């Protein structure tokens, strides 16, 4: 559909094969064109996921690293098998996601010593995340190999021992490290020791291993920052019979076949995306040949393919996958080159549509170019373009978006619509490790946001608008129930964030248990609905001073004076505890301009400036911070 010279130039690299891409990358690097080289490296990785290409990509990124804006992240692997060949695949995938991953590997089967010894190389490495990748045959050899010898009591006691081992590893690890811990659960053997009899008895081999896995899941759920990687399902998904290479296991302790190495790397990457915040909050979808088969403007309502039968079912499946994302708190939006009326007719009235207009938080159905539309959608939803994912069947559109708005995650769709739903389900940018109440209600929250904007256009003055919102704020100290959301806000909020200090759940729990440190959350409701928990403040007392370590507010409520209400509470709190002065840093980033004037506009004075930011101070005995009359504030007691 799209034409013109720019599209021609853009698709140029699309014609290069793998060998030509490598040459072109080296040519660009010699000329010092780091950004362009990194785009082609991404294209190369999308085309070819092999060990050989991964090694090439890693070595080139290691040279380009200083010129690119990559997020450093440290990962340790405690393992009972060879993982070395997986590491270049994982690092290549990480570079593709703008993560510069440093990997530390424990010695073989040394996970117990590494965890128990506080001076071990594991803790010396100071990882951000640790993967505990041990296998059934190593940690439960009796259940893996000798199952036929065991009576049911022995099976139970073996299972209890294994779960007890994991429990003690996790507790000891947590006592020494705040890093995230990802535990591989236990795989079942490809063929059970007792054959089909295994399915007939109460505690067969498969059931015994599944029970261990259920208890591991419960063990992880009890703790913060401990997660399960369902290794058993990973193996099953790719075929147990084709997963292993017994020759490699016997010779070099590598259990899986060469073709499966990348499946492990991809599964690890699915955890790294949410851990590093490299996730999409919104997926922007095309309509023709993406949400349905055919072109609505030409084929009409009766002509497009969409429904529960072949071939429309492929598009139906994609809609189901998108609906699943919606339930996970990921917003949906439309960007389509179409006549608005044609498109709306199909969206509203086609019997095969699983998605309805109300599922979409924003729509750009016009003939404007997609890069521009994506920027407009990000602005409308009040999120950065780096939080958008883009789904379009047309490779030219994808290429245009990649080069014009490289921050957007472009989902690669296969040419056959049969694979569309799976491409969405397998994309790591939609992965989440925790789901807060807010995530599940996000779609409704944005609907209310649209209603509020309409109201803002109808009332005469700003103050009238604030009054008409009837805002109620509830401020509460940290509770166990709010911890997940609070950590999520500190780690994901980019715009109204004064210091951009990122904290994990464990770090917050630990800070708050130290004397003089408090953490508060704010929840905001108005006449259009509950915005949920939208803000966090962390304060620290030192003598007669109170310092605001962290103050973040979700973009959902920016510009409605909630920040003033929150600051007014913080000032009262500080005064009550005997502080004379309230201070706080503003540390600028590329995204937090909305918070830049916060301290100045509340009569703070600049005290100190270093290379990173400005320290502001308010004399609490001289200047009050009054709460806006239109925000009704209630303060709750915590459960601590």
């Amino acid at each position: 559909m799209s034409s013109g010279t720019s599209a021609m130039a853009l698709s140029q690299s699309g014609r290069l094969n793998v060998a030509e891409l490598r040459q072109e990358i080296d040519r660009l690097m010699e000329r010092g064109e780091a950004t362009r080289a990194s785009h082609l490296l991404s294209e190369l990785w999308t085309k070819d996921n092999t060990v050989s290409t991964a090694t090439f990509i890693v070595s080139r990124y290691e040279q380009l690293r200083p010129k690119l804006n990559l997020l450093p992240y440290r990962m340790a692997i405690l393992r009972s098998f060879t993982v070395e060949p997986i590491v270049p695949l994982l690092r290549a995938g990480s570079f593709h996601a703008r993560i510069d991953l440093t990997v530390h590997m424990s010695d073989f089967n040394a996970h117990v010593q590494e965890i128990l010894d506080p001076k071990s190389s594991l803790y010396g490495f100071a990882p951000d995340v640790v993967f505990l990748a041990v296998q059934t045959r190593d940690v439960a050899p009796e259940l893996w190999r000798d199952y036929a010898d065991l009576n049911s009591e022995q099976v139970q006691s073996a299972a209890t021992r294994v779960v007890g081992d994991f429990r003690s590893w996790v507790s000891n690890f947590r006592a020494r490290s705040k890093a995230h811990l990802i535990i591989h659960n236990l795989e079942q053997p490809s063929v059970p020791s007792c054959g089909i009899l295994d399915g007939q008895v109460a505690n067969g081999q498969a059931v015994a291993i599944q029970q261990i896995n259920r208890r591991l899941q419960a063990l992880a759920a009890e703790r913060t920052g401990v997660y399960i990687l369902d290794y058993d399902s990973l193996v099953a998904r790719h075929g147990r019979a084709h997963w292993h290479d017994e020759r490699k296991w016997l010779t070099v302790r590598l259990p899986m076949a060469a073709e499966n190495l990348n499946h492990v790397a991809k599964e690890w990457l699915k955890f790294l995306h949410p851990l590093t915040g490299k996730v999409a909050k919104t997926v922007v979808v095309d309509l023709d040949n993406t949400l349905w088969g055919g072109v609505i403007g030409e084929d009409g309502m009766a002509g497009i393919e969409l429904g529960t039968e072949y071939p429309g079912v492929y598009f139906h499946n994609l809609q189901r996958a998108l609906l699943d994302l919606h339930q996970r708190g990921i917003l949906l939006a439309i960007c389509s080159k179409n006549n608005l009326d044609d498109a709306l007719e199909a969206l509203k009235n086609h019997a095969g549509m699983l998605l309805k207009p109300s599922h979409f938080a924003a729509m750009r159905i016009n003939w404007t170019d997609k890069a521009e539309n994506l920027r407009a959608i990000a602005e409308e939803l009040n999120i950065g373009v780096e939080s958008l994912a883009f789904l379009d069947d047309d490779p030219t559109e994808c290429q245009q978006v990649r080069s014009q708005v490289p921050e957007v995650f472009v989902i690669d769709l296969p040419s056959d619509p049969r694979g569309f739903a799976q491409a969405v389900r397998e994309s790591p940018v939609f992965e989440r490790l925790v789901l807060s109440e807010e995530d599940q209600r996000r779609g409704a929250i944005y609907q209310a946001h649209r209603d509020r904007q309409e109201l803002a256009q109808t009332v005469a003055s700003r103050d009238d608008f604030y009054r008409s919102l009837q805002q109620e704020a509830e401020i509460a100290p940290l509770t166990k129930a709010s911890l997940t959301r609070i950590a999520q806000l500190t780690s994901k909020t980019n715009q109204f964030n004064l210091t951009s200090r990122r904290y994990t759940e464990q770090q917050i729990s630990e800070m708050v248990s130290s004397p003089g440190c408090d953490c508060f959350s704010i929840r905001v409701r108005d006449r259009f609905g509950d915005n949920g928990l939208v803000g966090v403040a962390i304060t620290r007392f030192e003598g007669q001073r109170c310092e605001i370590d962290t103050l973040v507010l979700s973009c959902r409520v920016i510009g409605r004076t909630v920040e003033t209400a929150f600051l007014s509470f913080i000032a009262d709190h500080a005064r009550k505890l005997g502080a004379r002065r309230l201070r706080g840093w503003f540390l600028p980033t590329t995204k937090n301009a909305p918070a830049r004037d916060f301290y100045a506009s509340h009569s703070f004075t600049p005290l100190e400036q270093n290379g990173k930011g400005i320290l502001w101070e308010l004399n609490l005995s001289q200047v009050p911070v009054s709460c806006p009359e239109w925000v009704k504030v209630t303060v709750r007691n915590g459960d601590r």
Partner: protein
Amino acid sequence: MTSPLFERVRGIAENVLKLPGSQITAQSSPETIASWDSVQHLNLILALEQEFGCQFEPEEIDQMNSIDRIHSVVQNKLNHGS
């Protein structure tokens, strides 16, 4: 000597061992190339398995201790099916 297959093998070795192709000859081996350690050897074997869609036997892996010998093992494998 330089058949298309040989060039494919050399191309993979070039990537995995992180060397320019000109430095890799038929005689190159772990003895002559410093970066060719046991981990890189395993990576090289796996990269070849991915490239040629086969799985090598332990005996074959033992033999694959120079570019030339890797080339012959791969050639045999492709001729006799895997």
